[in-house]
């Protein structure tokens, strides 16, 4: 980029120095001034030798008219409207020298101007001018041809460009606009900011204080209108236009600065900053303002500054409480500081390229600021406070050091030994001495008669399935309880088949059946068979109930090599194809879960075959609901040693239950006594502790 290149203000593209428009965006590179505007807006200037006939004709007519009237021909380059203006004659140059109109000679009341002068007070020279202008206007109105584009194109252009909102005046008023009278001027457009002050810095007369009349293009900045070009209707003398002090102003004020109050400059000079202290020297009241300016201020309604009025008499603005609370005092502190003009950066891009002091494009919200701490107050409810306190106490307890536990004093379990000794002695005495001998129960359990009846009704040609689902630890009880039932079945020569979902089940079954069956001549494989272990839990139980032949892989203690089909070919299981083909299903269980599993999974597949539960005394309360319902899922229950003893009595043959009965009875007596004594000891201790606590409190 060279110094002669021009940067486009719109897109920052570098263009040659002679370019008038940007090669990229087409924006104008050179400012448009009045002369150029006219040249652009008007018809193109014909080149030498290419002038149209119309222009040649006009020029010849003008020259001929000038020759006949003695006027000088128009100078080339001057606007046509200027050439058409008649030069002011001697009698139109204004009042005679040394004679001023009264309105102008008056020191006060200049704002009213000559318009307030009575018509009879108009001087003769001015009256003549107005009369001649009136006659010329009337004649021009009568003889004026319709406006053509040739001779009035500039006027129309001006009206269109600079008076877009002003209605177009009739043709008859056109001369008045170009040559307005000296009366009060209509409100016109203000001067552009860039327009320099008038050549005479002193306040001009009222006729010259306003901007140029509407429709006039202000001269370009820095240019002064030529004196010779000033239209004579403005009434401005040649001396005034040349910057000389008018006569009327010479007498209005002192010609020098002596005696004037000191007014500090509002705009600092280079290297000097305007300080409030220096600005305070400005006392408006001490300035001698011209009368005409004072009148203007009165008309504008501007009150003169009062020394004691401002600020103090005004009430301080207050915000509502809610709005004051929302006011972000600390958050939105002004962080954008206005720097000196020299320190401000020059915009490098965009339509504002080259300008200094441009507002930052970065929004204020994105600039760093102080963090806001407002709203950090936590509202805690009662419950939250209680929970927080609880957590606090828990943490404190965790954090507190726990001292080493003192070594526990070794105490011999005398009470446990005493109870154990009593129980052992009570259980062993009947076995050792045969005494005491307790009587057998006379009351028959409620479900026993139904069980005996059920066993009596079992068909002899169908085997009974015995499920041995208990652990060896319960063998001492359940062998004695199930013994009478097996005794009854064997007395009826009913074939037996055993199965178990526990690995220890088949040996327990073999042990019990062999011990009881020896007296009845029962043989393995002929009178009874062990189907063996049924793995799989509840799934295996349901599968076995659905299809017994497919669910079991091998038996236990079979006479022949275990095969899948081998055990089902024994005479014991002859005729058994499905679960309901068993004459009865007897479940010997020590736990609630396994008993319920058989009831739930195999119960629906029993058909008409009865389901009998031989249970430990500990699970009897949970088995009873399946039995005592109107539609029972268990057809008979045999539980506990007393029921077994009663069953043996019903069978007429004493068995293991009866052998255990004395020991069991004495042991239960000791246990009950221990419970009673323990309960009494606990109650006494509680009463003693409560009494001690009451007395202490």
């Amino acid at each position, binding site marked *: 980029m060279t110094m002669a290149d021009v940067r486009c203000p719109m897109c920052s593209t570098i263009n040659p120095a002679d370019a008038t428009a940007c090669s990229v965006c087409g924006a104008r590179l050179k400012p448009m001034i009045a002369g150029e505007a006219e040249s652009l807006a008007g018809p193109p200037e014909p080149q030498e030798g290419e002038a149209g006939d119309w222009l040649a004709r006009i020029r010849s007519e003008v020259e001929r008219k000038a020759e006949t009237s003695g006027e000088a021909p128009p100078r080339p380059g001057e606007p046509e409207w200027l050439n058409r203006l008649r030069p002011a004659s001697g009698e139109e140059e204004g009042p005679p020298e040394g004679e001023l109109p009264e309105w102008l000679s008056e020191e006060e009341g200049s704002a009213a101007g000559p318009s307030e002068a009575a018509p009879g007070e108009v001087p003769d020279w001015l009256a003549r001018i107005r009369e001649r202008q009136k006659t010329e206007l009337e004649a021009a109105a009568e003889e004026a041809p319709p406006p053509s584009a040739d001779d009035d194109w500039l006027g129309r252009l001006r009206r269109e460009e600079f008076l877009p909102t002003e209605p177009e005046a009739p043709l008859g008023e056109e001369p008045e606009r170009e040559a307005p009278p000296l009366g009060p001027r209509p409100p016109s457009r203000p001067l552009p900011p860039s327009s320099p002050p008038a050549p005479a810095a002193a306040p001009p007369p009222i006729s010259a204080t306003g901007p140029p009349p509407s429709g006039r293009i202000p001269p370009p900045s820095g240019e002064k209108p030529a004196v010779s070009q000033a239209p004579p209707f403005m009434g401005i003398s040649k001396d005034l236009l040349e910057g000389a002090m008018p006569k009327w102003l010479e007498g209005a004020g002192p010609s020098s600065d002596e005696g004037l109050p000191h007014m500090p400059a509002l705009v600092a000079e280079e290297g000097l900053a305007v300080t409030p202290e220096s600005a305070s020297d400005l006392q408006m009241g001490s300035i001698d303002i011209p009368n005409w300016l004072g009148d203007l201020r009165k008309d504008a309604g501007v009150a003169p500054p009062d020394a004691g009025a401002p600020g103090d008499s005004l009430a301080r603005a207050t915000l509502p409480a809610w709005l004051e609370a929302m006011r972000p005092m600390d958050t939105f502190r002004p962080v954008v500081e206005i720097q000196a003009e020299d320190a401000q950066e020059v915009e490098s891009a965009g339509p504002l390229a080259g300008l200094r002091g441009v507002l930052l494009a970065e929004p204020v919200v994105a600039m760093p600021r102080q963090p806001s701490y407002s709203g950090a107050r936590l509202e805690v409810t009662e419950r939250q406070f209680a929970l927080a306190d609880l957590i606090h106490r828990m943490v404190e307890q965790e954090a507190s050091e726990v001292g080493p536990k003192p070594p526990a004093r070794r105490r011999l379990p005398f009470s446990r030994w005493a109870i154990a000794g009593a129980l052992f002695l009570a259980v062993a005495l009947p076995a050792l001495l045969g005494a005491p001998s307790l009587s057998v129960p006379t009351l028959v359990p409620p479900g026993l008669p139904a069980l005996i009846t059920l066993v009596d009704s079992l068909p002899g040609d169908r085997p009974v399935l015995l499920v041995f689902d208990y652990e060896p630890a319960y063998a001492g*009880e359940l062998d004695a309880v199930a013994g009478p039932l097996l005794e009854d079945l064997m007395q009826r020569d009913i074939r037996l088949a055993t199965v178990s979902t526990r690995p220890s089940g088949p040996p327990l079954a073999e042990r019990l059946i062999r011990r009881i069956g020896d007296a009845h001549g029962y043989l393995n494989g002929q009178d009874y068979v062990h189907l063996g272990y049924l793995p799989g839990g509840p799934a295996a139980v349901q599968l076995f109930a659905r299809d017994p032949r497919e669910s079991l*892989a091998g038996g236990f203690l079979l006479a022949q090599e275990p095969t899948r089909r081998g055990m089902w070919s024994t005479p014991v299981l002859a005729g058994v194809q499905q679960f309901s083909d068993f004459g009865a299903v007897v479940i010997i269980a020590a736990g609630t879960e396994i008993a319920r599993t058989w009831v739930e999974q195999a119960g629906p597949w029993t058909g008409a075959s009865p389901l009998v539960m031989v249970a430990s005394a500990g699970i009897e309360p949970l088995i009873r609901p399946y039995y005592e*319902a109107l539609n029972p899922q268990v057809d008979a229950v045999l539980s506990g040693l007393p029921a077994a003893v009663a069953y043996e009595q019903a069978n007429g043959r004493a068995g293991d239950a009866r052998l255990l009965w004395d020991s069991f009875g004495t042991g239960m007596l000791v246990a009950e006594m221990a419970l009673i004594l323990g309960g009494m000891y606990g109650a006494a201790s509680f009463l003693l502790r409560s009494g001690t606590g009451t007395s202490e409190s």
Partner: protein
Amino acid sequence: MTVDLTALETAGTIASALLTLMVLSYILGDNVLFRIAVHLFVGVAAGYAGALALRTVLYPRLVLPLLSDGFSAITAAFVVSWVLALLLGLKAWPSTAWLGSLPMALLVGVGAALVVGGAITGTLVPQALATMDSLDPSAVAPLTGETGFERVANVLILLIGTISTLVYFRFTARRGPLGEALRSPLSIAVSFVGSVFIALTFGVMYAGALAAALAVLSERIQFLVGLARGLLGG
């Protein structure tokens, strides 16, 4: 009770008596004898269960068909059984234990489905219907034969016990200002009655367990007494 003192059974009976005494030694406190007996029981039970599973489940299901029927026994179900068994066996090694998740998931899923389904159809629905039917005083229990005032009393006890027990297990309540549960006085009173029924039930179960334990103790004491008499020639 007589004890057959043949050679093998004599050894077994003596071992059984010693183990019984070792377990009963827990009365004196935790001791080595009790621990030896417990470890011995656990080991014997596990070994026996493994041997039984191998003999009665794996061999008849996975090997015997091939030996008896040859390749004709290889069916889809047979192959699936082998694959699942092998995958389950891989759980023995930590690096391949994840492969056994599939058969384990199958076992657990099927078992859970069966348990839940059986509980609903075999216990929950029948017991609920039985409870409602039991509230009819005119109905006569077919097995117990209760009639008259006994039946009415049983029905009332059953009704009160069922409702109060259900109310006791009601764990929903309104929340107080400090987060505590607020229950109505009626609910608290009914819950107390329910807790009494629950306590009675637990008492009965404890009595049954005590009776079962005493029966077992009686059997063991008589066994020891009989063994002693046999050894002493009495």
